């Protein structure tokens, strides 16, 4: 399980878990769950499009997830947010279906873009993921305070002159960046689970931001590590273990919170 060829997998997946938990904390805080589901799906369409015209799939992922995220942010100013998100995710998946119908891509490729294929990563992947993750964390650190304020007390943030729209678009761009980092490795559906499950579980047991963020990171890392180990042993898809694991953390956290009357 810890052979040299698995090293890249362990490192990349750990980096992604940290990024997903950090960004996911704000996703849960802002109630942007649906957006977090939509953006990785847009990234999936981008990857399909990029493989079609033969450019780097990273470019396709980046452009589509950013485009999708900004489209959601801008259109939902004049319309119901959740309906707009549903439309954009449909549009993106429709485009993905179109690209796939044009390409001769083999079905397992599509499967791995959706459900992830972490076994058999190369050291190149590690470098790319690490750089993107660093950018992601740096951006998050820069906008941490205004983002936290506008997520928890939007009126106060507005009164202090923090532009709500700009923060919202920045945040969406951050989700897009995190998706670009993660989708080629863990797949569109898995990334969504990682962004929602651990932070939601952490928020259920503590309302203080710093402990909640730390707990979310720990839970995300634990989920990913257990999932890789279990997937290695059973040969079952990693997406299954991550999806079920994240849901279990949440159920457990809700139960603990109820027992302790938090």
């Amino acid at each position: 399980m810890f052979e040299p060829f698995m090293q890249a997998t362990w490192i990349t997946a750990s980096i992604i878990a940290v990024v997903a938990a950090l960004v996911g904390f704000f996703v849960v805080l802002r109630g942007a769950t649906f957006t977090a589901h939509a953006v990785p799906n847009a990234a999936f369409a981008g990857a399909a499009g990029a493989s079609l015209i033969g450019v780097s799939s990273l470019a396709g992922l980046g452009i589509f997830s950013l485009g999708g995220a900004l489209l959601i942010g801008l259109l939902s100013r004049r319309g119901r947010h959740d309906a707009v998100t549903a439309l954009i995710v449909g549009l993106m998946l429709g485009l993905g279906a179109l690209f796939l119908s044009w390409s001769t891509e083999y079905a397992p490729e599509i499967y791995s873009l959706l459900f992830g294929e972490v076994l058999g990563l190369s050291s190149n992947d590690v470098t790319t993921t690490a750089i993107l993750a660093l950018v992601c964390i740096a951006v998050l650190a820069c906008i941490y305070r205004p983002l936290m304020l506008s997520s928890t007390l939007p009126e106060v943030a507005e009164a202090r002159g923090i532009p709500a729209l700009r923060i919202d678009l920045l945040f969406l761009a951050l989700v897009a960046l995190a998706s670009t980092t993660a989708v080629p490795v863990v797949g569109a559906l898995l990334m969504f689970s990682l962004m929602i499950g651990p932070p939601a579980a952490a928020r259920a047991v503590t309302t203080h931001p710093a402990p909640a963020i730390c707990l979310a990171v720990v839970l995300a890392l634990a989920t990913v590590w257990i999932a890789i180990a279990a997937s290695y042993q059973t040969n079952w898809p990693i997406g299954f273990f991550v999806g079920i694991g994240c849901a279990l953390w949440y159920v457990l956290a809700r139960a603990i919170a109820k027992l302790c009357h938090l």
Partner: protein
Amino acid sequence: MGGTLSAVFEPGFFTSAPVHAALLTGAVVALISSTVGVFTVLRSQSFAGHSLADLGTLGGSGAFLLGVGPLWGFIAAGMVVGGAMDLAGTQRRNSRDVATGIILGAVLGLSALLLYFDTTESSTTGVTVTVLFGSLFAVSGYTVPAAVAFTALGLATLVLCYRPLLLSSVSTDLAAARGIRVRLLGLTFMLVMGVTVALSSLIVGTILSPALLIGPAAAALRLTRRPLAAMGTAAALGVAATWLGVLLAYDSYHWKPVGSGWPVSFFIIGLIFIAYMLSGLRKPGRTPTTADAASEAV
């Protein structure tokens, strides 16, 4: 005149049996989805609606594995997950969305496993694509009449509790004050939506189904404030987009870059999106308010 007509309608469009079937089933699904969709959009449950369509993947992949007809897989999955989402959620939108997301994640993980079993045990690698991107042109057998019957049943339930449901959709407090059992009504709606959406995703594919649910309804609610008028508009928009989409997909068999036709779901979603964007051009002054819908419901 004849030249223009045959350029728009490729030869054989009106005589092809698959086209007839696609036009008919597409229209029925669009009608039902758009009507249910108005409630979905009014109740701000687009995420739940979208997730219910996604879990069609679970029903589909499970049915493939067990070798039973996908119809029952879809119905069971729709009922179970719809009910679970309603029970796990609370009234506050944020935590409701989180609960929906958690269930969606678990369901997707489970479908990943089932799809994996499908591909390894029966070595049919195309299953993923079929389940996810299903095609309107590939509908057949007893599935369609059965699916239509079930969705009609769901629609009848909605008609029966139209007034209380509408009231509780626009104002939970007002509905509760009038003695309406809001939680029970919410659960009923989720079950109806679960069955409708799951079945429509069986017929038109997991991608197209939520677009048909939300898109026409969201566009219609930007055009009119009155719920009944919105349902009519949404149904008309949905059917129009579906028929035009089928026509374009049929024509696209002769388009570049491949000679095998573009996916019909792409055209329908594209048309719905355009309709939504156009509906924003008209300025109705204000969006539907609680009072507007409540006055019609009371």
